[in-house]
């Protein structure tokens, strides 16, 4: 049972900027939680504070009830996989994995057994004698993961581990890492700025912006029901339209959508797949560009005032640039003062 509890953690750097601001999170035993946000959102700083590489300015971090807030990294029950792999190039694969075990004065035979078992787990059986510089990027990342796993940490910390890999390898590795994590049931905190990674791997996603939590939810909830306009804009593709609500109708240019909220400014959020378009003699928008992705198409539309919208269509060949179209939002959300005020 390994539970991570982060309570009101704040990190202020010397210049006075808050990298992390009153952040709280509970990660359950065996859960994989993704910290997702743009660069500078504080997600890596938070992960480094859990790993002990940064000290929080205030707040506390506990693992299985033990306060580790002020413990150095070498005394924490955590294992970190770094973005750049951080393998020791003067050691071979076996020595990279055995180093931590040797520091714990484990018998040589036990070290060999453990290292071979973990190499087998990450699909690198027989690679112990190779120098790390002789490995591909994906193999190096597996070694980095194995180096953390061999010490059986209570909490596994992954700091954008696939950022330096190509798309194909990234997709394969994230499946493998998720499988290993579930097989071992290890509590994991994963930092990424790739929403695909977060959506495909996480049990829960923490969306961060400017050091604060924007939303903590299951991946499907974060996608379908973003609680703030930032989350709506950051996760997936989204049409965010600023406009005015009057007498139960949201209005922007020729676009009018029924919205049962009090009058005032609002931001309307519509996913491209929730925005239907049809050819019309009384068009509300004109087609700017049609992109055919094979499985589907994306139509870029311009409202009369120049506002650009995107619509996902099944048959992109039905549309052409300059064509007048009518738009029909199916599922919408609306935001005011950074809060969700409506969802259909």
């Amino acid at each position, binding site marked *: 049972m390994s539970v991570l509890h982060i309570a009101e953690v704040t990190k202020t750097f010397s210049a006075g900027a808050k990298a992390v601001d009153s952040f709280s999170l509970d990660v359950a035993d065996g859960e994989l939680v993704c910290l997702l946000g743009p660069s500078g959102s504080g997600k890596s700083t938070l992960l480094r504070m859990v*790993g*002990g*590489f940064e000290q929080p300015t205030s707040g506390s971090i506990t693992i299985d009830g033990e306060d580790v807030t002020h413990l*150095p*990294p*070498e*005394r924490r029950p*955590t*294992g*970190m996989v*770094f*973005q*750049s792999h*951080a*393998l*020791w*190039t*003067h050691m071979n694969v076996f020595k990279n994995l055995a*180093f*931590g075990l040797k*520091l*714990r004065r484990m018998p040589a035979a036990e070290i060999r057994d453990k290292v071979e078992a973990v190499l087998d787990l990450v699909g690198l059986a027989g690679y112990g004698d190779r120098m790390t510089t002789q490995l591909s990027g994906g193999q190096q990342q597996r070694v*980095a993961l194995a*180096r*953390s796993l061999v*010490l059986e940490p209570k909490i596994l910390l992954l700091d954008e581990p696939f950022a330096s890999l190509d798309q194909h390898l990234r997709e394969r590795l994230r499946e493998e890492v998720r499988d290993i994590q579930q097989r071992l049931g290890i509590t994991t905190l994963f930092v990424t700025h790739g929403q695909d990674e977060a959506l495909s791997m996480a049990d829960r996603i923490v969306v961060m912006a400017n050091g604060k939590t924007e939303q903590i939810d299951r991946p499907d909830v974060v996608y379908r029901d973003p609680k703030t306009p930032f989350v709506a804009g950051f996760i997936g593709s989204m049409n965010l339209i600023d406009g005015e609500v009057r007498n139960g109708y949201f209005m922007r240019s020729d676009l009018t959508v029924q919205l049962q909220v009090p009058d005032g400014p609002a931001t309307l959020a519509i996913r491209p797949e929730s925005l239907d378009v049809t050819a019309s003699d009384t068009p509300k928008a004109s087609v700017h560009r049609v992109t055919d992705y094979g499985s589907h198409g994306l139509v870029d539309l311009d409202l009369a005032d120049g506002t650009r919208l995107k619509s996902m269509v099944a048959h992109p060949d039905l549309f052409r640039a300059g064509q007048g179209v009518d738009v029909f939002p199916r599922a919408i959300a609306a935001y005011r003062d950074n809060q969700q005020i409506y969802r259909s």
Partner: protein
Amino acid sequence: MSEATKQAVRPLVDTAESRRPIGLLFVAIPVFLVIWLVIWPAINAISRTVWRKDKSGEMGFDLSSYAFFFSDSYSLDNLSITLWTTLVCAILLLMICLPIALYLRFSRGRLAAYVQALAIFPMFVPSIILAFAFIRVLGPNGMVDILFNAVDLPKIRTPYLTPWGPVIGLVWDNIPLTVLILLAGLGSVANQSIEAARDVGANAVQVFWHIILPRISNSILVALSFSVLGIFSSFTLPYLLGPASPEMLGPFMQRTLREVQDPVGAMTQAVIAFGFCIVFGLFYVRSVARSREK
């Protein structure tokens, strides 16, 4: 292929046969200078010490000057003090410069900048001024003596004109180069490598021993090779600060040539010093070759 296309595909580094003479010309100047000013005098000195006239005036192979050097206790004492000074300086330089370089590599802020400026400062001080400052501070009736006297403490045993005089001067003189080379080596040790070591449970000493030291061993060898080469053949500081007897090879050579007026003896000493320097130089060449292999 059109003219424009030909230009477009021209590689960044042009290895065309027609351009090779220009490259060779650039290389030729330093190579010629090295041959003229280093290799030729070395060959000349070696040949003049082993191929010379005997008492009957006939030219022949003669190793008597070397036999004299290695049987003369004064010459051997001078060689010993030179080797001792070089060894002690190398150890002290490593002990002083490695912590400074480590501090500069892993520290940020204004204090680190001041420490770096102080560590590099000796590079801009000529040896003769350093020697004068040494005498004024640590010499008999120098500043330290005056200060001690002011608080009724006994006089210090000055290192001036003892084997420790050149050691102090040479260490101070070689700190900048050693720190800079070590710092360059430490620059190749990524922060995340160190963090990864701490993450698996290594403390500061274990990180230094298992992670940092193996990564900078070549830089240490290069730094020591440079320092040792300079110290072994140094002249100014041993001449001004060192004892008259035994003396380091630099002043010994000068005195043998000028005062004893024994050019063959001086050349023999130079060839022997050159031989030792070649051994040290091989360490440097080996380090560079190893780092290139990596």
